[in-house]
């Protein structure tokens, strides 16, 4: 007689004493501050992605109008506002005046008219300032605005594309795992073949052959994600199909559809959702990888990956430009991983099952 649980055997009449209730509440682990920080970050990213068009942000495609001016001025080592510069530049300091005289130039007038109140913070590859909260990129575009716009791509690629893959893959896995036999054989052969492509290479192949567009990037991610979900949901369907409650449902005369969707799916859903959270993180990283190969969304649409790739070109001179999107991607991936991890812990989903 194996001891099925260390739990104590309660009174046969009264179901549960009142203290059992408080006990379960106490047992329920509190999620902790870090978890809520992670949730907060994800919420922020989602908020930015959704409301990006109506947020008062700077242009994501046009450089700061003052960047040309600022760049010119910076060449002379001059700082200050445009008015100061324009009015006082000649008299500001003998050294600067001398330099400008040597160069035979003045700040171009047209750039000044386009830029009534410039500072050096407007130059390309700038550090953060009140004007550009996260600085500017190598084309003088506002990094903050592009990060927010990039969130949209990240979430489309992550949440939506992976979501499509999840739904497809889970269906395949459920059907294959429940019916077994020939159905399973055929379906899993396809899944195995799809898994025989390394994911990034398959994504590369799809985008390379179909052409570079946001849709194709999403399509590639969805296709790449599907077999993983199929395999995962099949293996958990197999374990749950063997559980006696499935046999009990059959004894009751439940139809196959009812058993699959009412008995098995709620159980398979947990590991699948846990895997989904991880896969979202993986997809966001994959977009970055594609960007490095020049295969992500075409410019000038900003994505975190393309921003990192852009910034990488100036890493030796302005490491800050590449740091910002890198950190944002890292923190987002970390947040998704953390949420997924706590989710698994909470619902006791085995890591190896993923």
């Amino acid at each position, binding site marked *: *007689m*194996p*001891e*099925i*649980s260390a*739990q*104590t*055997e*309660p009174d*046969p*009449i*009264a*179901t*549960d004493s009142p203290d*059992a209730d408080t006990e*379960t509440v106490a047992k329920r682990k509190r999620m902790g501050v870090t978890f809520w920080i992670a949730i907060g970050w994800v919420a922020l990213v989602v908020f930015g992605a959704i409301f990006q068009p109506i947020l008062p942000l700077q242009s994501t495609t046009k450089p700061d109008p003052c960047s040309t001016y600022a760049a010119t001025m910076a060449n002379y080592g001059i700082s200050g506002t445009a008015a100061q510069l324009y009015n006082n530049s000649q008299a500001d300091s003998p050294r600067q005046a001398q330099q400008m005289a040597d160069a035979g130039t003045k700040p171009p007038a047209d750039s000044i008219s386009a830029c009534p109140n410039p500072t050096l913070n407007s130059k390309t590859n700038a550090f953060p300032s009140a004007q550009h909260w996260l600085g500017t990129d190598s084309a003088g575009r506002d990094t903050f605005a592009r990060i927010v716009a990039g969130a949209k791509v990240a979430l489309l690629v992550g949440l939506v594309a992976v979501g499509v893959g999840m739904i497809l893959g889970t269906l395949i896995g459920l059907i294959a795992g429940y019916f077994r036999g020939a159905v399973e054989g055929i379906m899993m052969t396809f899944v195995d073949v799809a898994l025989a492509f390394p994911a990034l290479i398959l994504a590369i192949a799809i985008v390379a052959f179909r052409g570079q567009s946001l849709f194709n990037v999403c399509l590639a991610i969805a296709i790449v994600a599907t077999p993983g979900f199929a395999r995962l949901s099949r293996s958990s369907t197999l374990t749950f199909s063997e*559980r*006696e*409650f499935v*046999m*009990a*449902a*059959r*004894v*009751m*005369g*439940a*139809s196959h559809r*009812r058993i699959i969707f009412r*008995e098995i799916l*709620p*159980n398979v859903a947990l590991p699948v959702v846990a895997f989904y959270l991880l896969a979202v993180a993986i997809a966001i990283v994959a977009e970055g990888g594609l960007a490095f190969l020049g295969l992500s969304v075409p410019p000038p649409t900003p994505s975190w990956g393309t921003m990192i790739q852009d910034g990488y070109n100036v890493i030796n001179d302005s490491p800050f430009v590449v740091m910002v999107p890198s950190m944002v991607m890292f923190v987002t991936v970390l947040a998704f991983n953390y949420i997924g991890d706590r989710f698994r812990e909470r619902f006791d989903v085995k890591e190896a099952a993923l």
Partner: protein
Amino acid sequence: MSEPGTAHLRDDTLLSVEHLVVEFPAGRGRKVHAVSDLSIDIRKGETLGLVGESGCGKSTTGRAIMQLPSPTSGSVSYDGTEVTKLSRADLRRLRPKMQMIFQDPISSLNPRRKVGDIVAEPLQIWGIGTPEERVAKVREVLDACGLDPDVAMGKYPHEFSGGQCQRICVARALVLDPAVIICDEPVSALDVSVQAQILNLLEEMKERYGLTLVFIAHDLAVVKNVSDRVAVMYLGKLCETGTPDDVYGSPAHPYTAALLASIPKPEVRSGSEESAPLSGELPSPIDPPSGCRFRTRCPYAQDICAQVEPEVRDVGNGHFVACHFPLVRRPNEPATATF
């Protein structure tokens, strides 16, 4: 080779199983002979105890009766209906009449559904009653199974202990008003004191709802406690069947006798000499011994046991045994061999 025959079958039965064979593929063209030519029957209101060690095919028999999966060959008839020949739709319609309770109560309950939903599910599947009537019925059976419906219905299975989960399983089986319940090792995962609760509950429910039970277990004492008729199985074959008093009081099959002698009893033995009446272990069901399957471990085995499969024979009073040299014989039957 002969076959065991059906001399022990009776007429007025509710459920009757004849020549049941269940085989599973074991890879490389081999087969597991889980149940071989088993015939057994149950009268209305009777409890049949099916007993044997693990691997003897008793659980497979229970599932084959439920057509989960359908047996390789043989017939199962319920109340005159040949179950094995039913179409899928007709079989589904028959399901509410026959229910099952499993060994592991925790595994038998869907962890993601509330107890109220679990017990109501059979009613939902069959569209029985209005929602209010369903709730009333669920409350009734939960209550009958010793669970407070107000507390239990809104909770999840993991909030209950093993014994309580088994009560929920009993309630779920009862909610469709079945005629037959197959209990597959319903108490073997439970502690002694809980086991007593569930056994008492099953007896009460049997009385209250007029059930016919097939009670599958490996514990002989438990089987004796609940059964009106006992069938002993060994390696996919029926060894012996009869009333509990006959089978336990004067076992006719050497295996039954050995099984009974192996049970440690909660009373002091005198001396501490070797007590195991049987040596060796169960042979593989992939390649079972010829003739009588018990012969490889039987202290009385003769040549004939390897060649001819013993036929089920009457040793009096509805006590049947499949053995060439039964330990009990009818008073007027000549001895076929001496030990």
